[in-house]
């Protein structure tokens, strides 16, 4: 059973999606480690190292995602989990922006998959299965 670390980054307190993601991923047969809201990059990385996770699934709903996610890949590299899968989704930037451009920004930061606003977790299950190879 593969492990996925989930949580909400930064000063973000949106908790509903996070609880639903935990429930959905559990149902889909993953071992879910939920670090909850108001989590720092370090919180995510430490949890991933401790639990030998295959994927860090970052939620950012409140708009500061761009600031909060910068340098996360670099920190993963420093911490010895350079190749861990990084997903980000929710409402990751401020306002309604061209998503192509937003995706590019987060890809350049080193995120493997970047999800458009309002993509429910169910729609990402296929990607997760594919990437975790099960």
């Amino acid at each position, binding site marked *: 059973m593969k492990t996925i670390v989930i949580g909400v980054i*930064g*000063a*973000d*307190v949106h*908790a*509903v999606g996070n*609880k*639903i993601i935990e*429930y959905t991923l559990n149902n889909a047969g993953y071992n879910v480690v939920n670090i*909850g*809201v*108001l989590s720092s990059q370090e919180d995510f990385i430490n949890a991933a190292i401790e639990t030998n996770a295959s994927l860090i699934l970052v939620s950012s709903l*409140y*708009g*500061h995602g*761009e*600031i909060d996610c910068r340098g996360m890949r670099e920190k993963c590299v420093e911490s010895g989990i350079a190749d861990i899968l990084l997903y980000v989704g929710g*409402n990751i*930037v*401020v*306002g*309604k*922006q061209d998503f192509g451009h937003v995706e590019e920004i987060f890809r350049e930061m080193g995120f493997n998959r970047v999800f458009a*606003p*309002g993509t*429910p977790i169910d729609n990402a299950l296929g990607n997760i299965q594919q990437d975790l190879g099960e």
Partner: protein
Amino acid sequence: MKLQNKKIPEAEFLKIREEVLKSWKTGLDSQLDLDNAVKYLKTVPDYKNFAIKLNQAKANGTTLVQPRAGVPELDVHIKLLNYLEECGADFLPSTVDSYTRQNRYIEAQKGLDESVQIQRALLNGFPVVNHGVTNCKKVFESINVPIEARHGTPDARLLSEIIHASGWTSNEGGGISYNIPYAKSVPLEVSIINWQYCDRLVGYYEERGIKINREPFGPLTGTLVPASISNTIMIVEALLAAEQGVKNITVGYGMGGNLIQDVAAIKALYTQTIEYLEKFNYENMEISTVFHQWMGGFPQDESEAMALIAYSSSVAALSKATKLISKSPHESIGIPTREANGLGVKASKFIVNMLKDQSMADSPELESEINQIKAEVDCLLNAILKVGNGDIAIGIVEAFKQGLIDVPFAPSNCNAGKILPARDNDGKIRILEFGNLAFNDEIKEFHRKKIEERAKSENREISFQLTVDDVYSVSEGKLIGRPKKVRV
């Protein structure tokens, strides 16, 4: 400091105040000198005073509209507010960014600076504290209607000092409603003590003849919150505020989706708030209500979002709430452009104007829902007072600890998080899992029956899946998250 529901003596307040003002450099501004502030606030004309305008609306039986809005840069923020005023907003907000809400002024400054540099908002609101009194006064002086700070800040003491001294005559929040949905590990005692300070500040001004409105945040997590739970918290915060000398309070409620339940909630909220304030002998209180348009996940389609905004507005109008907080067609995507925000204001204004001479007809269904909510609130408040030995402040902390009161989906560690809400067959919000919630058996039985009816009609077990389906349903265009029909 030990928590209790007791007015902070002025001397003590002023002593704490010294510390508060030191917490960020903008606190040292001489415009924050209380005599200066009182002088400035005395120049605020009636039509720009939140409390006075609310009182008028209540007297006329009209529902006034206020959007949410806030961008980091001063000029852009002022233009945004001017635009919304043109669209018909009766009250203006300044929604504060999330770093400021967590008192992370350094990050807020970074976000503000970079936003100015790249000409694109990186913060999700207007960082009031970083802007300080001078800028906040500029905001106030650029508009022609009352203005309120809207945030979600467990420790909003400096923020409150700055906004009131700048002529902003309303402050949203409260020790519970700005902690439970907005924080993870701030102890409830702490946020309540902090908000007693904010209320005491308003009381200070009130004693000097300056009317300031306070608005506890009714919707909480915005997600399937049973009316009796949010109403109970509203009443507790009203009592806490009244003790500190606040006189003008707007208690709030976030739309649930069932018309009768929503109207019942506002009506029960209004009567019970007054009842409890009277019971505890707070006199000359001015109570109004605020109805929040649908606070859960919005539909992506903009015409659907507009429809939901309009529907929410009709419920508000029929409930005769004094104020309506509007949303925008961009809600599900991100902070709205000012145009999108304006569309929401215009649609909302249209409906409340159109329905201003109508209200919800009295009916047995409405009456029984009002009575239901009242009975539940009485039950919860009794429990709170009991564990607080009559002190509402101590009681609420203890009640949360024991899960006697519990808010669904809240991120806070102080919240038990054991109850599960779901809709009944009419779409009314009920509870399927009570945890330790202080409902009596009769009430629990009522909820159980209602949820059973629904589960039976859908031919499925009662489980968390009901709740999950109901979390998604409105954004998918239904009120009740019925199981999807499997096509054969």
